[in-house]
């Protein structure tokens, strides 16, 4: 994979909150995956409303981390902190540290556009560009200057579509509009689009909400395959999906991280009463 170098944080002008070293060497030795992204003391405000309080969370490399919780608990807000999408919301203020590979992503020196290529995003409602299938996938690499020739671009498009499990279905209609595909296919197109710019992390905000069970199952199988090469964080209002798809699950409630642990443990013997109440359907 060819990578453009991200603008490195200038360590001589650190922000107030210094990123903690990741101790990844120790983690690897212990057989755990290294930490890819970390949030420490994250607080988010919409105007005077505090949406998230002191969120400390480690996202491990090549794992699927699921964020669950009732409506309004802050999980989507949290997701948007990870690729600075909250910057686009005027009254939103983010405090605390968010790091990618130990580097603070909110540092002033960071190129936000490039950051959002390294940390891709897939949304709830599939939103392909009003372009051809080919151009949907080719657009990102082109504007980021990732490829220098037509052949290289073709290669990137084909590879991305293959990885997203879509190539076989669209091979003969690459120049048709992306919006003409079915819901499940559109979502896979959006995933291909995100993959085309060589991300390290893929954020998914309820990617299957608009899809039928078969299309959902196909996306879940795709997520299983993708995690070999990418780190995935998925917000889902279906805790059954979180159970099926993720290795680690974080339960949010009223802006607080209530519980975070191995998915199997969270769903078989949660440590917190509130977690148990939510996953057993004892409160909404």
């Amino acid at each position: 994979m060819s990578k453009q170098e991200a603008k490195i944080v200038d360590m001589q002008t650190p922000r107030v909150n210094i990123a903690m070293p990741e101790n990844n060497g120790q983690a690897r030795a212990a057989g755990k995956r290294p930490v890819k992204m970390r949030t420490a003391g994250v607080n988010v405000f919409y105007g005077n409303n505090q949406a998230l309080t002191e969120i400390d969370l480690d996202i491990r490399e090549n794992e699927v981390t699921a964020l669950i919780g009732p409506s309004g608990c802050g999980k989507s807000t949290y997701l948007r902190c990870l690729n600075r999408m909250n910057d686009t919301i005027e009254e939103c203020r983010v405090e605390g540290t968010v790091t990618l590979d130990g580097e603070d992503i909110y540092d002033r020196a960071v190129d936000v556009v490039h950051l959002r290529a390294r940390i891709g995003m897939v949304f709830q409602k599939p939103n392909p560009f009003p372009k051809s299938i080919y151009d949907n996938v080719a657009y990102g690499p082109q504007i980021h200057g990732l490829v220098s020739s037509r052949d290289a671009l073709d290669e990137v498009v084909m590879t991305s579509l293959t990885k997203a499990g879509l190539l076989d279905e669209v091979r003969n209609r690459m120049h048709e509009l992306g919006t003409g595909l079915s819901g499940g296919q559109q979502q896979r197109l959006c995933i291909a689009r995100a993959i085309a710019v060589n991300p390290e992390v893929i954020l998914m905000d309820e990617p299957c909400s608009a899809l039928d069970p078969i299309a959902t199952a196909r996306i879940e199988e795709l997520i299983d395959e993708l995690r070999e090469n990418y780190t995935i964080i998925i917000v889902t209002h279906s805790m059954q999906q979180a159970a099926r798809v993720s290795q680690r699950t974080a339960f949010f409630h009223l802006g607080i991280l209530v519980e975070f642990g191995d998915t199997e443990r969270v769903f078989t013997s949660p440590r917190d009463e509130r977690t148990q109440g939510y996953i057993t359907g004892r409160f909404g």
Partner: protein
Amino acid sequence: MATQQHIVSSYDEELEHLNKTIMQMGGIAESQLDRAIQSILKRDSAMAQEVVEGDHKVDELEHEVANFTVRLLALRQPMAVDLRNIIAALKISSDIERIADYASNVAKRAIALSQFPEVNLVQTVPRMGRQVQQMFKNILDAYAQRDAEKARRVWKSDEEVDEMYTSIFRELLTYMMEDPRSITVCTHLVFMAKNLERVGDHVTNIAENIHFFVHGKPMPENRPKFEESYYKVMKQAEQDAFPENAKKAKKKAKKAPRKKPAKE
């Protein structure tokens, strides 16, 4: 039966792991049963001791199956045939664990028996053991092949095992009454025969679970239980031992009508 793969391939891998673990348990239990019976025939205490010590392996696998089942139920929300597969596996693992326990019990008694001089009567129990062994092997095959018809045939064959048990029981009672010095050996043999008969019962449980797994409804027939002949033998033995009571019992039987056991 569903032969298609799940869209999410890891689900298939997990179900396969579950079924493989059941087969592994079954294999160990089969081997335990075989060696327990051999240790009777060969009067081999060392072999019997190995069987006793090997029982923990089956217990560990049962825990593994239980934990894995809980995990599958929580994380996969299984439906229909997958749900029945997982529940059947859970129940069958419990039956296999009991079968292995009975094999271990038989081995313990084999050790005791080997302290006594060799007696011909001892042959009857291993013969019953071989029958039960064959049933167990067949039911494991039926599970692996998802063959409910094969399971039903094994289920029916438990009749013979029950008959063998009743006949051994009667024979041993007579032996004990004729020669009280044989009581110790015969009592061990009675327990061993009972253990083997219970193995047969657990095999029929497995058969019923396989049937439910494959067809989604319970077996229509009741398991044949020869309670009548069981009590007959007991009564006969008592009458032989205490003839004066036999006369009274005969008079009573003539007056009251015989109750027939309820059949569905």
